[in-house]
């Protein structure tokens, strides 16, 4: 079984400041890792994912996340946030075991609020 913990339920930051949203997971098997984002009044959409290879993955809008196997973490970072980054961010994992399907196990979400 897997579980995901997002350590901060709310993160308020000022525009152009750096931000880190923390995510830790627990699993008895290897997992794929994801960050999903839900902008106000919009549906949930994939931000970035780690499948294999380089442990640092990037999104098109400047976010990055680093997979740390020893610490079982997948923290999300951005060096300079914009007002438009205000959203709820969900960390999720899925099992690498093929016959367990691709069901996602989500954390409880972190509400990022960017203030001018």
């Amino acid at each position, binding site marked *: 079984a897997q579980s995901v913990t997002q350590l901060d339920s709310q993160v308020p930051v000022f525009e152009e400041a750096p931000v880190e949203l923390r995510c830790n997971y627990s699993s008895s098997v290897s*997992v*794929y890792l994801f960050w999903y984002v839900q902008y106000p009044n919009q549906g949930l*959409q994939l931000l970035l994912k780690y499948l294999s290879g380089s442990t640092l993955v990037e999104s098109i809008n400047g976010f990055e996340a680093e997979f740390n196997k020893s610490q079982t973490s997948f923290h999300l970072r951005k060096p300079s946030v914009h007002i438009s980054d205000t959203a709820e961010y969900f960390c999720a994992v899925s099992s690498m075991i093929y016959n*367990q*399907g*691709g069901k996602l196990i*989500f954390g*409880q*979400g972190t509400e990022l609020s960017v203030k001018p």
Partner: protein
Amino acid sequence: GAGVSQSPSNKVTEKGKDVELRCDPISGHTALYWYRQRLGQGLEFLIYFQGNSAPDKSGLPSDRFSAERTGESVSTLTIQRTQQEDSAVYLCASSLGQVGTDTQYFGPGTRLTVL
């Protein structure tokens, strides 16, 4: 192309009534997932379908919950004898296959309120 659609967008019902929620996945996507998001909580996996394989029902919280899927198209989630704790946003997602690497595309959700 069209994304995942869900209907209704909002549903208010009385405790004890049955409700049906509908999901239309992206055309060609063989895998379909249902999740729910209760207020202040993360998304919980409920059930997934992959082609003609038996669905994985391991996330269904009780036998009041059931779901069906017609081939590789529409799915309906049915909740019988609704309870107040069933109030949540029910999200449907689809992906090309069941492999964990495939991106899941989410619908806008159905907000269920049980009075």
